[in-house]
Structures are given as C-alpha cells and as structure tokens.
C-alpha cells in the first residue's frame, strides 16, 4: 500500500498534472488552429467587450433569464462548481503537500468548511444524477458518458471525505482519493468535462454575435 501511495503521489501525480495542463492546452490550441484553418471569420466577429458582457451575465447566479427560471438548479449549479474548484485548491492537506514539495503555501480553508464544501459537491452530483433520471428532456439526451462524468467528479470527493473522517481503511481511501483525483484531472481534456475549457469561448462567441452584429441581449 505504501508503494502504491508513493506511486500515486509521485510519478502518477506528475503525469496527471502534465496530462491535465498539456492536454488542456492542446485542446485549446487544436480548436484555435481549426478555427484559423476553416472558420477564420470567427476572429472577425469575436468581440472582447460583448464576449465578456455575455460571460458576466452567465457567471453571476440568477443574472440570466434561464437561471431565474430554474432557481434550484441554479443554486446547486453555482454552489457545486464553486466548491468543486475551490475545495481542492484551498484544502489544508493539499497545501501542506505543495509546501513540502515546492515550499509554497497560501491560506487554507478550515477543515470543517472543506468537508462541508465536499458534501456540496457530492450533493450536487446526486442532484444532477437525479435530474438525469427524473426530468424527461434531460433523460432523453443522457448517455452512459454523462453518468461517467458524474462518477469521475464525485469520486475524489467521496473518497476524500471517507479518508478524512477515517470511516474505513484510511490508507486505502487515501490512495483511492489520490487516484480518483488524478483520473478526474486526466479526464478534463478527453471527456465533456472540457466544457470547463470551451464554455467560456462558446459563450463569448455567441455574446459577440449577439452584441456586435445582432444588437441584442443573449441572457
């Protein structure tokens, strides 16, 4: 188990970060080059001002009409994404690892908060899972990969909480936590989790078209 832990927190972690960063950059570059080669006009219409205007209306909870139409979903979506991004970055245990390896550190979240936020992420996954089962228009377009993405996202948080609360074999769940976190990072460029990379671009492009050409709001 110690061997596995060392492997998971050593070479595999390096590999996971490399694939995450390199793969994400590759995906963005690939898209950029594709646009340059086939749809150069996209750059003509791209407007920073209107792109940001559109993004601003969609990253603020309830600022867009459709967010207001779905208050529960909106609350869950924003809480989920915020916790998903912030918890791993500001978790004390993670910062300690950064400090040991690189001698860098930053303020940490109190552990109770981090646990609470992890439950928000897990709850969010359950909410999205239920929504995929219950809401007909979502069920209609749901495929196995959608459940896979939910599982990939929930896994590091579920295992992390179990390890922290020492419910089962701590060492096993710590290793599973590290491995599942790495799996999620690696999955970003290769699954539709890459909406994390592309969504700001598609939103900004639609915002640009609506703002600069169509003179209309898109939120």
């Amino acid at each position, binding site marked *: 188990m110690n061997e596995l832990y060392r492997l998971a927190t050593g070479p595999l972690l390096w590999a996971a970060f490399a694939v995450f960063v390199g793969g994400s950059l590759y995906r963005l570059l690939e*898209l*950029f080059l*594709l*646009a340059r*080669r*086939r*749809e150069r*006009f*996209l750059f*003509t*219409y791209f407007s920073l001002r209107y792109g940001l205007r*559109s993004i601003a209306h*969609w990253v603020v909870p309830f600022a*867009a*009409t*459709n*967010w207001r*139409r*779905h208050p529960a*979903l909106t609350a869950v979506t924003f809480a989920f994404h915020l916790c998903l991004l912030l918890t791993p970055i500001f978790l004390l245990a993670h910062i300690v690892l950064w400090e040991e390896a690189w001698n860098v550190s930053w303020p940490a979240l109190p552990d109770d908060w981090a646990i609470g936020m992890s439950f928000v992420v897990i709850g969010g996954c359950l909410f999205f899972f239920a929504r995929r089962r219950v*809401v*007909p*228009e*979502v*069920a*209609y*377009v*749901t*495929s196995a990969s*959608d459940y896979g993405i939910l599982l990939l996202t929930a896994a590091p948080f579920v295992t992390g909480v179990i390890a922290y609360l020492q419910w089962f074999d701590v060492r096993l769940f710590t290793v599973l936590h590290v491995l599942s976190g790495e799996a999620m990072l690696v999955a970003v460029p290769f699954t*539709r989790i*890459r*909406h994390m990379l*592309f*969504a700001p*671009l*598609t*939103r*900004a*492009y*639609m*915002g640009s078209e*609506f703002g600069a*050409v*169509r*003179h*209309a*709001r*898109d*939120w």
Partner: protein
Amino acid sequence: MTGSKTPPPAKTVDEGLERGIAGLTEERIRRIIRRVLAGETGARLKAYVDTCIHCGLCSEACHFFLSRDRDPAYSPVGKVKQTLWEILRRDGRVSPDFIKEARIIASTHCNLCKRCAMYCPFGIDVAYLMLVVRRICHLLGVTPLYIQDTAHSHAATLNQMWVKDDEWIDTLMWQEEEARGEIPDLRIPLEKEGADILYSVIGPEPKFQAQLIYQAAVILHVAGVDWTMPATPGWDNSDMAMFVGDNELMGRLKRAHFETAARLRVNRIVMGECGHAFRSVYDVGNRWLGWSMPPIPIVHAIDFYHELLEEGRIRVARRFEEPVTLHDPCNVVRGGGLHEKARAVIRRTCAQLIEMEPNREHNYCCCAGGGVINCGPPYKKHRVESNRVKAEQIAAAKLKGAKVVITPCHNCHSGIEDIIHHYELGVETRFLGDILYQVMEKP
C-alpha cells in the same frame, strides 16, 4: 432513456423527400456527410458538440417543446441528438430513411430562431447545427418539395415566386397607376441611377401582395425620399436557398442583389417588412460572399419607418385607435435588435400597445420562419399545433384588449395568421406599413 411522449405526426407524404431518398445509397450518404464535416465545418461544430453537457436547459426556449407538451424529442438538444449526434456517432453510416427523418426534423421542427442560444448557458448555436444537417440533406438531394420549388425559382429567375422579368415591371407600373389615383404625382422610379435608396422586396409582394408595394410607394413619396427600384432581376431580397442548405445559390442571389444596388449607385438598401430576407442580406448571405457586414448598408422597414417618423418626414394624422400588440420577429429582433424601434414606431402611430409576454429578444417565434412555412401544406398542421404557446401569448394580449397583432415580417405575418385561424383567436394581423399608411398625413 425516455422516449418521445407524443406520437409522431401523421405520416407525411412529401414527394421531394421520397424521390430524394429513392436513389440514395449508404455509400453516397457517407461520402457527402464526410465532405460536409471535413470540408465545411470546423471549430464551431467541434466546440458545440464537445461542450454540450446534455443539461436540457435549452428545452424551455423552444416553442415546439413547450407547445407539444414538453416532448423531449422537440427540445433543441433532442433534435441535435436525433440528427447530428447520430451522424457523428455512426461516422456517417446512416440510412436513406434516417436522412429523410433528419431532414424533417431539421427543416420542419426547427425555425432556426436562435432563442435556445439565449437559454443555453454555453451559448451553443443549435440553429447552426440544424443548418449543417440541412446542408447535408441538400447535397443529398433530399428536400421538401415546396421549398425546393421556391429554391428552383430562385435559381431560374433570381426571385422566389417565378415572377417573370416583364411581370415585375408590369406590376410596379400597375401599382404606380393605382397609387396615382390617390396621389396624382406619385412615381415608382425604375432604374434611377444615383438615387439615395434602393427599395427591395420579397417575391411574394409582386406575386400576390402588390398592395404592399403601393403602400411603400406612398410612404416613400410623401416622405420625399429619393428612391428607386430595379427593372432587372436582383430586386428580390428573399432567400429560400439559405434555408434549404444551398449556400452556392444563396451566394448567387445575394451577389445579384448587392450588385443591382451597386449598379444603381444607391447609398442604402431599404427593405420591406421581411425577417428572413433581413437575415440573408444582413447576416448570412454577405458572409458567404466574404463581407463581414453588408457591402451596402441595409435598412429594415422598421428602422426606416422609425427614421422617417423621428425626422418628421412622415407625420401622423390620427393614431390607430384599436389596441395593438406586437409580435417581435426573431430575425429582426434577436437578429437585428430592432425591438425598441418597432415600439417607438407603434407609440407614434397607435393609441395603445399591449405587450405580449415574453417579449423583445425573449419573444416566441411564429413557427413559420426558417423556411418551415415554405415547406408547404404537408407540414401545416404540425406547424400550427407546434406553436400553441404563441396562440396563448396572443390570447393573453387579447384578454387585455388587443385587437390587432402587428407582425413586421412576412413569414411571421403568414404564420400568425394561420395560428389565429387554427386557434380561433379572433384578432387581425397587420404589417407596420399597413398601420403607417393608414394613419399618416397624405397630400
């Protein structure tokens, strides 16, 4: 996986589709699909397909989905799933029957109204994805008969309605003569080089709505506008080619239109109350020809009426008394931002405006646009049944007192009329120009 709730519409027999698929082989289908995907699509298609998280939030944007009891097969993403996702998943290995169904979905279950782009958190352009499907079907020769006929007319005559060159000139002279009964010195100037404005219309105006040319002539004459109409093909600004997926033909049409305006050395093109033509001239056709924005400024009738009223070139004798409501046409509102100007014109010309809810950019489509009404009688029942929400919007406005629905777009006008009849709403539709002509001061 949940299936579609409502049964599919009664089996439509469309000769254009049946004949189209009769000669198709799976090998040819795959070749054409690959050609389109590899040669004509790029970053947008990739980003849209890769980014969609299958959340279904676009659904409530769609009047089809809402009107058909929230049938998931009619949600924007549901339509993409049944067409483009399948094509991609099977790497183009789809059957002729699949192509027929995909054509029906892309061409008659979606008006390309882009309302869903305002409801998708990622701004995914489902209208564009449906156009990709239409493009594939066009190259495979699978197109509803009625709209293909209008495209053939465009190809043969450069107008949508098989109007012959002499019939066009004759119609203008006829309307000039009629209008001179009211205003003796009125002219419909033909081929006037160097005029300030080229006034362009869609094919149906000379074909069966010639009174609209009469009204426009009166408005332009009274306002003292220096204008002209061409005596040559290129007068028609409409474009069904854009909607069948025949981009090459669209390019020919728009080139003829812009070149006609350039030949007459006008400063601007003012167009009648048509939404899809505005989309074609202002947004789509110009891009195909390589112009990021139209090479000659395009002014939609709403914008032009607004200008004439604001500058005092047209004065209102007595405002239109019956309470009106306004249908915001997608192509000039979500496509051109003319919603406030339309309201300003109505405030000047009408005594009372009762708003539909929702309105402006959020207004529901008429369900006729995007070439859907042009697919003809086989799809009419499905079309009007698929816009119950519009009927409810109009009925609610009527309850508040509205008696007239102003629809400043040809497709909307016809679509709303069908809805009014089908749901027995008991209100009238009018163009903005009808109202302006009626209330303006005339010599």
